[in-house]
C-alpha cells in the first residue's frame, strides 16, 4: 500500500479488505505513542496488551470469513473518566487512583469494541472535568500537537497527534467543542440524553454529554452511529430509536435553512474567531443572522448548575481530602459547595425558559453557526485572557460560546477553520434537538470546502513520519 490509511473509514476498509491487518495498524499506533507521547501527554494509560488481543480477534474473524464491524481495526482512546475494565477510573484526579479497578468497560467503549474498534488506552484530562485547558497538576498537561506550548486536552491531543483517528470524550460546558477548536479537529456533542453515560465518572449530571472527536467529519458520523442506542441504566438517556447519520451525509446542505448566531455570539471574540464563522457561512451560501436572546443568562445559568451540582457530588471528598485536589479546581469546587439552593433552582427554571425561546429560533432556521471559542489555543500556564477589551480569568471564560448551547442540550458538530499561518479556530454547527444528522451533514459540506487544509497536512506529516 503506497498511502497509509489515516481516517477511521480508511483503516476499517483496509482491514476489511485484507490490505493491512488490525494487528499491524495497532502496532504502528502503539509505536507512535511510545515514540512521541512523552512530548504530548495525551495518554495516562496505554492498554497495549489488551489492544493487541482485540486486534488479533478482529484479524481472526476476518480469516474465518466472519463479518467485521464498521470500525474494524480502528484504534481509539477514551478520556480517563470512562470506565476501562481493569484500571481505576481517574477522571483526572489523584484521589481516584485509590479506587478499585473498573470491573467493566463503559457502555460506549463496549459498543465501539463490538463495532471492531481497538482500545489503545485512557486519555489525560483536567481534574474531575472542571477544565477547558488540559492542564493537570497531577499528570501534567496535554499539549497541543500543533504547538506544544499551547493548550489542548488529552482526547483531542491523541487525535491531532495522529496516535488514533478517533477518540471519545465528554462535554458538559464545551469540553468536546473547545479542544476540537484548539487542535483543528471535528467533534460531536450529541443532544443531551442521546448517548448513555453508563460507566463514566460524572461531572454535572444535568449537563454531561459524551461524544467523539475525529480528524474527518465522516469519522464522527461513523463513530456516533456505532455508539448510538438507549440504556436503562442512565435515567437521562432517551428511549429513542437509533437514527443513523452516515447514510444522511450525502444529502449535503440542500434545503437547510442556515443562519449565523448574532448578538452575544458576535461580541467579545477575536476578529479571527468571527472570521472563521464568516468563512463557514460563505461556504454554505448564507448571510442571514439570527439573534439568540438571553444567551448571557443561559451561560450564567450553566455556570451555576455546574458549580453547584459538581461541588455537591464531591462534597465528601472536599471535606476529607481537599488538599489532594488540583488547586485550580479545588477552590472552584469549594465555592460551589456554598451556593444557596435557590440560585441553583432559578438556573434550572431558566433552563426551561431558554429552551422555549430556542424552539422559536428553530422555527426560523434549521442550523445555526457560532464560534466555538473567543480565541485560538491559549499558552499553557496562561491565567487570563482579553475579552471585549477587558482582562478576565481564562478558565471561567473559554466556554462563553459553548455553554449557552449545551445548557439546553442542543446537538453540535464542531468544525475546524484555519486561517493561513495561524492556529485553528472552531465553528459550532448547531441544530435542533435530536437532529445530529443535520449537524453532520453541514460539517461534511464544510470539510469539503477545505477550510482547514493546513491541519490536514500537519496530520498527514505526523502519520507519514512514523511509517
Amino acid at each position, binding site marked *: 500500500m503506497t498511502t497509509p490509511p489515516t481516517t477511521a473509514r480508511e483503516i476499517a476498509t483496509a482491514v476489511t479488505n485484507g490490505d493491512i491487518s488490525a494487528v499491524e495498524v495497532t502496532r504502528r499506533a502503539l509505536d507512535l505513542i511510545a515514540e512521541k507521547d512523552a512530548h504530548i501527554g495525551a495518554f495516562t494509560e496505554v492498554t497495549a496488551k489488551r489492544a493487541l488481543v482485540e486486534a488479533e480477534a478482529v484479524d481472526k474473524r476476518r480469516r474465518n470469513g466472519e463479518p467485521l464491524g464498521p470500525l474494524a481495526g480502528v484504534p481509539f482512546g477514551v478520556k480517563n473518566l470512562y470506565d476501562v475494565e481493569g484500571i481505576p477510573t481517574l477522571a483526572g484526579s489523584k484521589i481516584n487512583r485509590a479506587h478499585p479497578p473498573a470491573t467493566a468497560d463503559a457502555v460506549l467503549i463496549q459498543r465501539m469494541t463490538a463495532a471492531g474498534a481497538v482500545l489503545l488506552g485512557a486519555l489525560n484530562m483536567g481534574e474531575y472535568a472542571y477544565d477547558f485547558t488540559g492542564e493537570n497538576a497531577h499528570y501534567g498537561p496535554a499539549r497541543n500537537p500543533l504547538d506544544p506550548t499551547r493548550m489542548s486536552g488529552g482526547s483531542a491531543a491523541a487525535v491531532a497527534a495522529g496516535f488514533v483517528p478517533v477518540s471519545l470524550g465528554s462535554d458538559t460546558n464545551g469540553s468536546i467543542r473547545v479542544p476540537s477548536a484548539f487542535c483543528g479537529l471535528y467533534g460531536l456533542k450529541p443532544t443531551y440524553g442521546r448517548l448513555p453515560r453508563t460507566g463514566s465518572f460524572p461531572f454535572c449530571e444535568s449537563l454531561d454529554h459524551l461524544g467523539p472527536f475525529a480528524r474527518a467529519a465522516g469519522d464522527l458520523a461513523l463513530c456516533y452511529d456505532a455508539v448510538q442506542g438507549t440504556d*436503562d441504566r442512565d435515567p437521562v438517556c432517551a428511549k429513542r430509536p437509533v437514527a443513523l447519520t452516515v447514510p444522511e451525509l450525502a444529502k449535503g446542505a440542500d434545503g437547510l435553512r442556515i443562519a449565523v448566531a448574532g448578538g452575544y455570539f458576535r461580541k467579545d471574540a477575536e476578529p479571527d474567531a468571527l472570521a472563521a464563522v464568516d468563512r463557514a457561512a460563505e461556504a454554505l451560501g448564507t448571510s442571514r443572522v439570527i439573534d439568540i436572546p438571553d444567551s448571557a443568562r443561559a451561560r450564567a445559568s450553566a455556570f451555576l448548575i455546574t458549580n453547584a451540582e459538581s461541588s455537591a457530588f464531591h462534597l465528601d471528598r*472536599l*471535606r476529607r481530602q481537599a488538599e489532594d485536589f488540583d488547586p485550580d479546581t479545588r477552590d472552584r469546587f469549594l*465555592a460551589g459547595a456554598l451556593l444557596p439552593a435557590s*440560585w441553583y433552582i432559578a438556573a434550572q427554571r431558566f433552563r426551561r425558559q431558554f429552551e422555549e425561546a430556542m424552539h422559536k429560533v428553530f422555527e426560523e432556521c434549521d442550523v445555526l453557526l457560532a464560534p466555538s471559542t473567543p480565541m485560538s489555543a491559549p499558552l499553557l500556564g496562561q491565567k487570563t485572557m482579553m475579552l471585549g477589551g477587558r482582562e478576565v480569568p481564562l478558565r471561567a471564560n473559554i466556554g462563553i460560546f459553548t455553554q449557552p448551547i449545551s445548557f439546553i442540550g442542543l446537538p453540535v458538530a464542531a468544525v475546524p477553520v484555519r486561517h493561513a499561518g495561524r492556529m485553528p479556530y472552531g465553528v459550532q454547527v448547531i441544530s435542533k434537538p435530536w437532529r445530529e444528522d443535520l449537524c453532520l451533514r453541514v460539517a461534511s459540506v464544510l470539510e469539503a470546502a477545505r477550510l482547514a487544509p493546513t491541519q490536514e497536512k500537519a496530520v498527514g506529516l505526523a502519520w507519514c513520519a512514523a511509517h
Partner: protein
Amino acid sequence: MASGDPTSDENAAYISATAETLGLTIKPEWMENVARFFAVAKDMAAFVAASGALTDSEQAPVFEPRDAE
C-alpha cells in the same frame, strides 16, 4: 454583570458560616480564590434572578418513575 467584591464582609461571613455548617475547611491561603469564585457565582445568580426565573418557569429536571422490576 458587575463583579461583586469578593472580599466584602458580607461574603466572607457567609462563606465562613456555610463552610463550617457543611464541615468544610477552607485554609487561609485558599480563601481569596474561594471568595473570588463565590462572588462570580453571586453575580451570575443575581443576573439569572432578574429574568424572573425563580417564580415564572417550570424547572427543567423531570423525574420519570421507572417500571418496578
